[in-house]
């Protein structure tokens, strides 16, 4: 870092202020505590219908597998490790909402309404045995889902130096 100290905040004056309305159209991320979740809600039953129509071609019936992989815990094939899916590997349910909203369906990203994303989130969390079939998903309930994998997550423990980790 070689800039002289005088180049503090706003010193160059390049760029224009980001208007809150503009930021809002881009600011679609969702955090583990639920910050960023929009209004709306969805049920497991609605999610099942949407999933069958828009997702199962790639992820199999009910998310059990397909050309682009399983999304739900399936019975372990003998001798094979269980697939890493939402129910056994994802630490936060908010990520399910965030990811589906930004990236799925793969061939039509950004095409779902918030209610549809809530419904798909409900459906996948239910199929992963994380919520029962009556629990409605919304900005309050998604961050409250307890995810079994969360306890397993540790930050990087490699530090450089001779030790192999």
């Amino acid at each position, binding site marked *: *870092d070689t*800039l002289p100290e005088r*180049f*503090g*905040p*706003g*010193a*160059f004056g*390049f*760029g*224009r*202020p*980001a208007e809150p309305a*503009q*930021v809002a159209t*881009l*600011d*679609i*991320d*969702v*955090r*583990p505590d639920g910050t960023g979740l929009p209004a709306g809600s969805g049920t497991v039953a609605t999610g099942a219908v949407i999933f069958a129509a828009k997702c199962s071609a790639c992820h199999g019936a009910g998310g059990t597998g397909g050309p682009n992989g399983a999304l739900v815990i399936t019975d372990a094939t003998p001798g094979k*490790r269980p697939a*890493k899916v*939402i129910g056994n*590997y*994802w*630490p*936060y349910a*908010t*990520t399910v909402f*965030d*990811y589906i909203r*930004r*990236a799925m369906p*793969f061939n039509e*990203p*950004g095409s779902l309404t918030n209610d549809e994303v809530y419904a798909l989130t409900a459906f996948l969390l239910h199929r992963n045995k994380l919520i029962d079939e009556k629990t409605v998903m919304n900005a309050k309930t998604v961050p409250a889902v307890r995810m079994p*994998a969360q306890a*397993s*997550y*540790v*930050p*990087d*423990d*490699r530090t*450089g*130096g*001779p030790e*192999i*980790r």
Partner: protein
Amino acid sequence: AMAATVMQTALANGLQVGLPDDPTKQMGTPPGKLGSRSRFETLAKAPSDISSRSPLQDFKGMITPSDLHFERHHNGVPTIDPATYSLTIHGLVDRPTVFTLADLKRFPSVSRIAFLECSGNFRTGKETMTPQDICGLTSQSEWSGVRLSTLFREVGVREKASWFLAEGGDAALMTRSIPVRKGWDDAIVAYAQNGEAIRPEQGYPVRLFLPGWEGNTSVKWLRRIELGDAPWHTREETSKYTETIKDGRIRQFSFDIDARSIITFPTYPAQIERGWVEVRGLAWSGRGKVSRVEVSTDAGKHWQVAELQAPVLDKAHTVFRHLWRWEGSETLITSRVVDETGYVQPTLKQLLDARGPDTGGYHMNPVTAWLIKPDGRVLYQPDYGR
């Protein structure tokens, strides 16, 4: 000086078409607006649906030709109009700001030669694998852009900001959470690669470039940076780009690329002749400079220090070379790098012993060995170091 109006129209029948019998006796192709690759060179990446691997065995030197830089996308390469492109920085900042491409180019700039490697860059299996097949998801360019620290100062990043979210403008809207200290340290908001605008496959018009860190964090087609006080736990840092390690733990935010080396010659499908052979390859570390590369030509019994091509740069592919006299007997050749932190490139067994057998494919950097057959054929040895 010389009047040079060569009468090309009248004499165009003299120009070379096809392969001339004797190129010294026919006028050559005149100078042009863009150079070309020789028609005799058939360099190509190896594409899959999600990535495309650099042909490491074909490269000389440390720079990767831009059109042969590896690719890894999560929903293809977007087409972004530079005239409408913008980068928004907001969140825990005093001055949320939108920067156009022209704005970014007005700031003080920086250039550096550094590697970029996908943390999922390891495949093994058959003897007929090339360096491209095994670890073709690494490439090196000279990257230019504005230091993220400069932008941080400009927008007034607040003291309690500890993480930021970097978001791409592709169809995957790729997102990664990055510690703010990396932004103050050496992160670049890059708009150029090997002298020219970043190529579309590498993030045109603007990408994040985090020297030494796993490739996925250098978010391409960067459209937004949000400053926050905790990581977001996006899908790409939970479901993916994490590795199970011992006791059922899941290692997350494993940003640094561990030191690695690979021999790129002689390797499959080369066939060598008896006599002097220059064993050469690439070595790099995400933690700093390569200190030393050792080569063994007797299956790991003895190791010799290879020559490193100057300049040895920080977080950069470094060419190593070792001159070896091969007398014709079957043997294994292999290389290992030591980086400036003292880390010695491990065997696959050492990695699996340390992480457990279920660790998966991220951050795997084992030593790689090649079997030299008495007839000079070279085969990958997937079982070496297990």
